[in-house]
């Protein structure tokens, strides 16, 4: 008679999956780049276009690469958090200004403050694609060997900063 209970068992398993599914975000796509070397690029700096910047310059340091844009709404939300972080001087933050206009970007930094050691301009979004960016803001934690160790999708908040990003940075710096 076991076969008559089978549909019920299948359904219970399904219901458990559906329940778990309710607490998942189907739109958040984890990055396959975590654990891989940060893709190389050379881009002009936002403030001094004559000077190029490349992730290779950062070898030997733990750093954050924050993807932002003046048109991005949730960047506004994360901006004060980044300002606070840069004041505490724990880890250098570098900005990737994604698909932005030079003037808008400069105005944004003038108004809200500039938490970045420097920003580079990715006007056409090509470096963004190389880094698998799909929603701004995104933040990468990159270790001394230039390997991406973590990707924060969406704004950096005081919570995910203290719970995830800073402990990881401390751990990586100690290595």
């Amino acid at each position: 008679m076991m076969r008559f209970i089978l549909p019920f068992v299948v359904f219970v398993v399904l219901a458990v999956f559906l329940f778990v599914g309710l607490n998942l975000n189907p739109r958040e796509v984890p990055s396959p780049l975590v654990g891989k070397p940060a893709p190389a690029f050379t881009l002009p700096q936002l403030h001094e276009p004559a000077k190029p910047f490349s992730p290779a310059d950062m070898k030997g340091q733990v750093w954050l690469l924050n993807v932002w844009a003046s048109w991005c709404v949730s960047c506004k939300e994360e901006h004060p958090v980044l300002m606070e972080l840069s004041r505490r001087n724990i880890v250098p933050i570098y900005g990737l200004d994604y698909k932005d206009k030079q003037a808008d970007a400069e105005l944004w930094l003038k108004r809200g403050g500039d938490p970045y050691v420097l920003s580079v301009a990715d006007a056409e979004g090509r470096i963004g694609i190389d880094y698998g960016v799909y929603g701004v803001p995104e933040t990468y934690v990159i270790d001394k060997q230039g390997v991406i160790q973590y990707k924060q999708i969406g704004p950096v908040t005081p919570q995910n900063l203290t719970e995830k990003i800073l402990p990881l940075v401390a751990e990586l710096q100690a290595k």
Partner: protein
Amino acid sequence: MIPEIGNFALIVGLFLAFTLGVLPIVGAARNNAVLMGVARPLAAGQFVFLGIALGCLTYAFVANDFSVLYVAQHSNSQLPTVYRVSAVWGGHEGSLLLWAFLLSVWTLAVAMYSKHLPEEMVARVLGVMGLIAVGFLLFMLMTSNPFDRLLPAAADGRDLNPLLQDPGLVIHPPMLYMGYVGFSVAFAFAIAALLGGRMDATWARWSRPWTTVAWVFMTMGIALGSWWAYYELGWGGWWFWDPVENASFMPWLLGTALIHSLAVTEKRNAFKSWTVLLAIAAFSLSLLGTFLVRSGVLTSVHSFAADPKRGIFILTFLVIVIGVSLLLFAWRAPKIGLGGKFDPLSRESLLLSNNVLLSVAAASVFIGTLYPLFMDALGQGKLSVGPPYFEAVFVPLMIPMVLMMGLGPLARWKKVDAPELAKRVSWAFGAALLIALLLPLTMGKWSVMVSLGLLLAFWIIASVTLSLRERLAGRDDFMQRLRGQSLSYYGMQLAHLGVAVFIIGVTLVKGYETERDVRMDVGDVLNTGGYEFRFNGVTEEQGPNYVAGKGHVTISKDGKVVTELYPEKRQYNVSGMPMTEAAIDAGLLGDLYVSLGEPIPDSDGAWAVRVYIKPFVDWIWAGCLLMSLGGVLAISDRRYRIHNKRSAEAKTEMPLEEKTA
């Protein structure tokens, strides 16, 4: 005031549904005629009060009452009246109300057309439907009340999504919901039969017409949705294997299986537990669709705004309804008898093989739709399952299915003489094969897939022809023989022909469509597929709640003007959303489809224009229409109209039954 009346009517409706869900079922268990007798009046009362609620919401929309939150979110004073009415079901809350109202319509219909059924059966069926209504009404009142006020009232509404401002969307949801909800009748009959322990051919006979009606609505609802996507989304696709489409397709597949297995159960009193399970599963998948669309667990183009609280509520409701039904099944099904005898090769066994294929097809759609969720829940990462997967899995399953569809109606009940059947169909198959191999040559390009598709379609057509010939040819009067066949026979053959027509449409449009994406200056011509498209420019036009750029394209063939098309690019005032309104010249042999892209910057009125030539594309929906008409014919059969208690009782005493070993 009116919204409060609506809210009150909902609460009364809930109370009536609850009473309907309890008293008659208790009455049936205790054999209490008074308690069973309240079922019909309660069903009528529930219908009246939910009708009042729906009327109140519709009134709030038509009267632009923006103090009702739901109205403020989904309407606007500029919105034309017909779309204000259809905006009632343009969002989550209102569409739930429509769901509940349609459920009360079905409940009332069962109450009215069940005079020939035993009282306790009616009581149980209506009671189960009442319990389902309780779930939906509670859901609405607790998490998604369409009558919630917005204070202070909004000055104007946020407008209905422009995509939904379309005649197709006025009727698509009610049709589809009639189908979804209609499966609740077959479900209620199944549960009633399990509760009563009375599981015989009469049960199948009673639920069969209801299932067919629901299936007809569902077929039309899905077809309308597909047709809408075709002309409204601006790039000529008609099916995307999106989770929400799949959510309607799965119950359709199981409903189709159910119609066929009910035939075996009615005829041979066999495979009853399977048929009951199928009835439960078809409605369960309807409910699951509701969950998928409204909980946000899957990403879809047309899901409603997601809310985890709603997700939890529907999931709980699902677990109760489906879980209890399946437990009841596990408890009662082992006692169901085996039924009458038939051979492993017979029309019965062919119908059951069809069931296996349809159920596996539904399961594969299910696996594909939910696989991303499974993977994510197991921490295996994110993945997407889209059209390439479904086409790779679904099409191979449909090939044997269609081959059997041709054989089934030709096969005898109880026992098939295989060599004899093979001999009968050999000519039909040969003819189909010949046409399938040669016809593509006349269309300019031969390909395996086109030939295969045509083989399947012409195999159905040939077998239907053969069946008609065998039944109608003879020495006596042709007209008499024509009348001598039952309507359900004609219905079946018409529905099968519909599948053939559908396959022809799909095959030819996939094999021979042309698409051009061009830049057209005013006066430019495009020569493609034997037609000449001349672009006469775009003029601005003012709509009721939008501004449109209206293009003018003249199409001619061999120097003669075929038609003039006016594709539009609209910008809606409130939402600012751009919309592409394709212009289509529909025809029996194919559509000419023109849609406007974007204006080309720094040009003298040039636009990006997309031109499609879609041969036989309308056959896709014509096929669905034929399937539905087949269903309508089948339920018009007199054996469903002349029912009286006597014949129903006579049938339960069939001598060949319940001979279990």
